């Protein structure tokens, strides 16, 4: 019949499509790329490569090799603060004054030496530009260039965490002369007067191991090695980051040998790439801690018993085993287990069991049989390896069993954070990703930054973390942060802590030193071919 013959192009397409997906293996690249590294990553969240305005996970990745900061923290031992541009430092006993002695011989790419004036300029520009990460510079009261090699930072109040905060991307040290020429401003009013931001889209003014060769938004980043870098010379002469939106496509490129490293992989790629030829998987805990935030201003979350009920209603093990396929672990509070003040034992103790009966009983006590509430998350997003769409749908199924109907309303990724910051969502699948690696950065759930969005306060917890911030005594801090975590896990708190997903990096097996960094994703300058 005619129609069968008309349909055979369809048949061809379908048949080819249905052929088994094997593992064709990498293309023969003929050994071309020894000193050039190609990375596949989703860089669409980068809004600004200007350190004073940068605040995204991918912009931290972008800025890390271009700039140095005063101190550094290397994976995996984040407790230790090492010197970067600051060779040594002293902290006043009241933790209000920090004095840094700059390393000799550090220079910006291009040769100009790094001086205290550059540090002063960079810190104040960051503070007064009022970018999304500007709050990190709030403690700074004044920065003084005592002499070309000494900087004194005076804080407005005692703050023992300031040193760790200096590793944040916003505190990258810029070449003040170059940026001033481009219209950079380091005084009050920088938020309107500074004109330098657009310059950063095509250039870098740092003293890091690489310089910016090219940045094309949502397309490509090209790094060139800075041969005058004061630290160990990186192995790769050129590093190219290709923007690839789909996680599976990143996996495909790696398999085919078109890239050396694939970042931002999801659970499906982590499972699918296991055992692939000539590919190594590097897995470790990510810095994402995922939780559900409940807006206590809307029903049913305004009822503390309902909040508690929800905590017992979730099938946590199902999430870890089926949604995350074992790539991650449960968390009982917002911090990463293993950090100061949150040992693994405490984490386990704070976990809620999945107890449907108890959940229903609590709902009864609350007097709520049915409730409908909106549930928001960034559409199509991944928190490290965790597929958020999938998790949201699972949570809906779980909570529907106790009568809470979650209306799924994902929003575009680019507007998710603003909506969140405005306190609009009723229920939100959120995460925390650190700006710097000190427990103080995780106090955002009570210090006003995040909890304000849920219309919730805990004066006791706030007192605890304020004290912990000001104390330099490690043991005291540990006890205080443990207290903080316990308070966060209380049944009436508007947070349901879920998981810390694992991060998986897939790389060709001829690469060494592939390590995940909790702030910058990947330490590019450490990579080398075996």
């Amino acid at each position: 019949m005619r129609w069968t013959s008309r349909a055979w192009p369809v048949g061809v397409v379908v048949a080819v499509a249905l052929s088994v997906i094997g593992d064709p293996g990498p293309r023969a690249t003929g050994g071309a790329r020894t000193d050039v590294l190609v990375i596949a990553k989703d860089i669409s969240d980068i809004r600004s490569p200007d350190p004073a305005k940068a605040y995204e996970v991918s912009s931290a990745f972008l800025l890390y090799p271009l700039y140095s900061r005063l101190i550094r923290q290397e994976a995996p031992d984040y407790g230790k603060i090492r010197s970067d541009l600051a060779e040594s430092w002293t902290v006043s006993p009241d933790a209000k004054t920090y004095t840094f002695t700059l390393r000799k011989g550090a220079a910006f790419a291009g040769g100009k030496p790094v001086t205290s004036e550059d540090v002063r300029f960079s810190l104040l520009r960051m503070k007064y530009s009022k970018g999304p990460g500007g709050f990190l510079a709030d403690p700074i009261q004044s920065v003084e260039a005592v002499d070309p090699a000494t900087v004194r930072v005076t804080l407005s109040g005692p703050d023992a965490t300031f040193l760790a905060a200096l590793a944040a991307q916003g505190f990258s040290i810029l070449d003040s002369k170059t940026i001033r020429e481009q219209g950079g401003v380091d005084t009050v009013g920088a938020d309107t007067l500074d004109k330098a931001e657009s310059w950063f889209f095509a250039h870098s003014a740092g003293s890091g191991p690489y310089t910016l060769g090219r940045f094309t938004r949502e397309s490509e980043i090209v790094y060139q090695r800075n041969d005058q870098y004061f630290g160990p010379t990186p192995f790769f002469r050129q590093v190219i980051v290709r923007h690839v939106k789909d996680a599976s496509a990143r996996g495909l490129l790696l398999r085919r040998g078109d890239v050396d490293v694939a970042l931002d992989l999801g659970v499906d790629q982590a499972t699918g790439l296991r055992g692939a030829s000539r590919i190594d998987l590097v897995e470790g805990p990510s810095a994402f801690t995922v939780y559900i935030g409940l807006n206590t201003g809307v029903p049913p979350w305004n009822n503390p018993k309902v909040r508690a009920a929800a905590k017992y209603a979730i099938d946590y093990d199902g999430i870890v085993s089926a949604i995350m396929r074992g790539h991650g672990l449960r968390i009982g509070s917002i911090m990463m287990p293993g950090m100061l003040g949150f040992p693994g034992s405490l984490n386990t103790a704070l976990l809620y069991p999945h107890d449907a009966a108890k959940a229903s009983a609590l709902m009864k006590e609350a007097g709520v049989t049915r409730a409908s509430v909106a549930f928001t998350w960034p559409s199509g997003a991944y928190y490290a390896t965790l597929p958020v769409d999938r998790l949201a749908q699972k949570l809906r199924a779980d909570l529907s069993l106790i009568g809470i109907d979650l209306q799924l309303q994902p929003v575009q990724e680019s507007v998710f954070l603003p909506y969140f910051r405005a306190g609009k969502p009723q229920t939100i699948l959120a995460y925390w990703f650190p700006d710097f690696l000190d427990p103080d950065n995780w106090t955002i759930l009570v210090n006003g930054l995040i909890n304000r969005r849920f219309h919730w306060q805990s004066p006791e917890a706030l007192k605890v973390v304020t004290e912990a911030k000001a104390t330099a005594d490690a043991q005291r801090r540990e006890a205080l942060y443990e207290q903080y975590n316990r308070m966060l896990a209380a049944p009436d708190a508007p947070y349901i802590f879920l998981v810390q997903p694992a991060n998986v990096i897939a790389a060709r097996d001829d690469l060494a030193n592939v390590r995940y960094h909790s702030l910058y994703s990947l330490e590019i300058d450490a990579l080398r071919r075996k």
Partner: protein
Amino acid sequence: MGRYIFRRALLAVPTLVGLTIVTFFVSHLLPADMVLVNLGDQAVRSPELVAAFKHRWGLDRPLLVQYLVYAGNLLRGNLGTSIATHRPVLAELALSLPATMELATAAMAGAVAAGVVLGVLAAVLRDSKVDVFARGLSAVGVAIPTFWFAILLLALVYFQLGWAPPPGRLSAGLAPPEPITGMYLVDSLLRGQVDVLVDALRHIVLPAIVIAMVCLGYVTRITRASMIETLAEDYVRTASAKGLTAWAVIVRHALRNSLIPVITIGGTLYAQVMSGTVMAETIYSWPGIGRYAFTSAGSMDFPAVMGVALVVGAVYVAVDLCVDVLVVWANPRVRYR
């Protein structure tokens, strides 16, 4: 003829003006949250910052005044500054528009060439295997969902078979040619960079095929149908009765006349393609205007949104105009309205 062109062009002006009004008001549909998107936490904490932001982007003046300022800038060639990147929208468009034009043109060229050949063959060899294949391919081309086809091709041709390079315009690390038109194929040709030309060609194949599929479907169909009608005309019968070879009959007499509907369709398709490349561009990492529109609208970057809408709309109006003129030129018997 000249009068017709002039009249037609004149008629396009109110459309363009209307376009600016519509784009302006649609992008201001994106509500006040746009402030929040671009300021973040600071906005919520500080009313002065909100006021300063609004003032900077002229949002604190009445809507009509804002429009007039916008229109005035437009006349001077200033499309505003993107909130997301703080660069002139014109500069951003100068990067993304050529990318899409290159893709659309390559796809259309391929589709028209293949479609016309296939359509003619199908018409001449009615009800043969060729005809059946052409009609089948046409039906498939018209019906297949672009996004699905794009994913399918990527998985099969790139991954399984390894015949195509990975998504993107150029291979990693290869510097694009110094821009003249912004289209890599053209620029690399003009600058004599053969290696870049070849690389760019290899990269454009897959996304072009995805886009061409739909066009191929329509072009084949219309060519075939038009050719069949033309072949039945008296003058064709006369020509073949006169003893001309089939080839001469087809090419010299029938083809030209049957191509008129094809021109019409071609123009319309081109305009449609220009505004609908989002799928192919996202999946093949093609930094074109479709994707730019999508991300700008998503991040409520209203100057960018206005710029894109305006440019795409203007292209559409221009293509419409060209097609009208071409049709009238090709067949003076036809007159619109």
